[in-house]
């Protein structure tokens, strides 16, 4: 049982780290970013190829992957999404197009083959319980990244500006913030966060063009559960869903491992639509 709780927490770390990027993008630009999972996949392929090509440790690849993903995010926002900035429907449509595009470009490149890093980093026994290094590093990184993002959003000028835009983009425009630029920055930052997640997940999962797809729905749920745009919310949401999935898989049946958190998610939405850490009423405006 203890082992299951540990697995749940470690899984929570994974769900949290894949959700930071989404909560930034979702919270600020207010577009349902369907391309989220495929960006994660692109990041994982970058990390894998670079690490193999340069024969360096995978975690060092963050130095390259994160800036590359930042640039990719900036390009997407600047040349695609900002063209349809006043049309939320078309923004969603474009992100879906990007999902298909990224997945299938990688499919055409790799012919759908599977890639894995075999990093048998060993385990850490604690009494009768066992932790594994890959997921532990990921969990620590998830917590550290949450703190860094919070510091950035709360204690820097750009961070304040981003928060202002996410709360009210019209008012932010009126007080002289350059909303479109901040959008570009937010998408870039969100993508950079996805890049960090991609590097951390590369040793854990097998990489193939559809690997990101399985994380899309869960990260939407984490973001809404935690509260739109809330970093601590994403961390808490990830933990809750990770634990619930692990426990219900163990106690009920592995094929029903998601059903409890689906139900909890719906219950939370029913009683507290703004999410656990969201500002009450933020759902009322209706994010489009």
């Amino acid at each position, binding site marked *: 049982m203890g082992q*299951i709780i540990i697995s749940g927490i470690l899984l929570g770390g*994974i769900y949290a780290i894949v959700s930071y990027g989404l909560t930034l993008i979702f919270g600020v630009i207010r577009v349902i970013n369907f391309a989220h999972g495929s960006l994660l996949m692109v990041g994982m392929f970058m990390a894998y190829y670079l690490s193999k090509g340069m024969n360096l440790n995978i975690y060092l690849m963050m130095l390259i992957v994160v800036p590359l993903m930042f640039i990719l995010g900036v390009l997407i926002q600047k040349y695609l999404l900002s063209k349809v900035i006043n049309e939320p429907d078309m923004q969603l449509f474009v992100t879906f197009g990007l999902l298909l595009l990224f997945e299938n470009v990688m499919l055409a490149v790799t012919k*759908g083959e*599977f*890639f*894995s890093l075999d990093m048998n980093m060993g385990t850490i026994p604690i009494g009768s319980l066992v932790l594994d290094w890959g997921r532990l590093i990921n969990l620590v990184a998830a917590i550290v990244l949450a703190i860094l993002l919070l510091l950035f959003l709360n204690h820097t000028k750009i961070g304040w500006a981003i928060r202002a835009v996410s709360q009210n983009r019209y008012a932010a425009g009126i007080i002289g913030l350059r909303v479109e630029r901040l959008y570009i920055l937010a998408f870039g930052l969100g993508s950079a966060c996805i890049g960090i997640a991609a590097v951390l997940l590369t040793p854990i*999962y097998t990489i193939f063009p559809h690997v990101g797809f*399985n994380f899309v729905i869960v990260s939407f749920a984490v973001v809404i559960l935690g509260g739109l745009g809330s970093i601590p919310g994403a961390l808490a949401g990830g933990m809750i869903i990770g634990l619930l999935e692990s426990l219900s898989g*163990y106690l009920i049946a592995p094929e029903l*491992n998601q059903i409890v958190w689906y139900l909890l998610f719906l219950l939370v939405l029913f009683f507290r639509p703004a999410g656990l850490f969201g500002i009450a009423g933020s759902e009322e405006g209706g994010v489009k």
Partner: protein
Amino acid sequence: MGKIQRNVLILLLIATIFIVGCSNSASSDSDSQEIIKIGVIQPFSGPNAQAGEETYKGNELAVENINTNGGLLGKKVKLIKADATNAQEAISEAERLITKEKVDIITGTYVSGVAYPATQIANKYGVLYWETNASAPNITQQGFNNVIRIGQYGVPMATVAVNSIKDVVAPALGKSLTELKVVIVHEQSIYGTSIGEIEEEELKKLGAKVKRIPYDAASADLSSVVNLSKNENPDIWLRTGYVNDGALLFKQARDIGWKPPVIMGQADDNAYLLEALGDKGMEGILSISYPSYDMNEKYAPGIKDYLDSYRNKYGSEPKIPQTLVSYGGTEILFDLIKEAKSTDANKIREAALKMDVKIGGTYPTGYGVKLDPKTLDNTRAFPVLTQWKNGEIKTIYPPEAVGTDAKIELPLRGW
């Protein structure tokens, strides 16, 4: 919008219409007199694209082989790819192959969900559907007389798993069947479920203690499967699933430092799992698999040639064992076409029903040929049991297929 952008758009639209138009004119070539066309329906996109592509390579090598040796009935053979990942696309593509491309025969299919509608359409037009891969048992139970399954499928995969536990694994562990405890884990789609359920039933008949745990192959975490299995403390961990979930499952077992005495998977002797877990990780893991590449040349004549031509053409070792199955299956098809002197479904079926080839010694898969007259399943297409040794796949069972002096080595000791 600027003028340039608009022009680019118009150009792209024209290009698409052009491509679409070309596809429709391409099929109108009048050379069907000199060419035998075989349509290949596989998932060439989507999550199973890799398997579709690798399976197709088997067809491709067999066709190249026959074309360089003078063709078939004096004609060249041409393959036409059709990409279908689900039932809806299967309908479109099967219709295209038959009515537009005018193929003589259709072969496939890695995904059973694609095979159902595709076989129905082939049946409507009376075109032979030459099934080399699909595992769902009821594909051949639809009462169609044009669907022949030459390769192994779910039932033999499951029964051979049980038989090899009985004949090889249990003796190696020094236990009797009634002392054995088996945990079956399988992904929950039709592939894993059909095999897992038969295994459970057969093992229970033999008196073994069995627990069956289905799971979702798309799960981001399989620790609950691993821990539930570990709690049972089984002698044998029997798995049916795909590559990515297999890698995750094994890695998560390694992450908690649990390795049961026996791990046996379905077709887990592929290059991707080796990359994921390394030589050491895969050491000793058994697979009930498609005929493997180290088989004895006497049992599987032509296997060395096949391997050479694969390496020459694609510049690597074969990635998954299914490639050989489609290669061998296509060779049987060619022999039948020669025998029937036609590509007509009825004539080929008659020839196939007459065919009586014993297991081993004829085809590079080692398969024999003897169709079940009711379902048209090949009753002599049997899987083999393989084991990973130092990063190489060694065939263990059946004895006549074993090329080297490989012996089963059990139990497994740690990751």
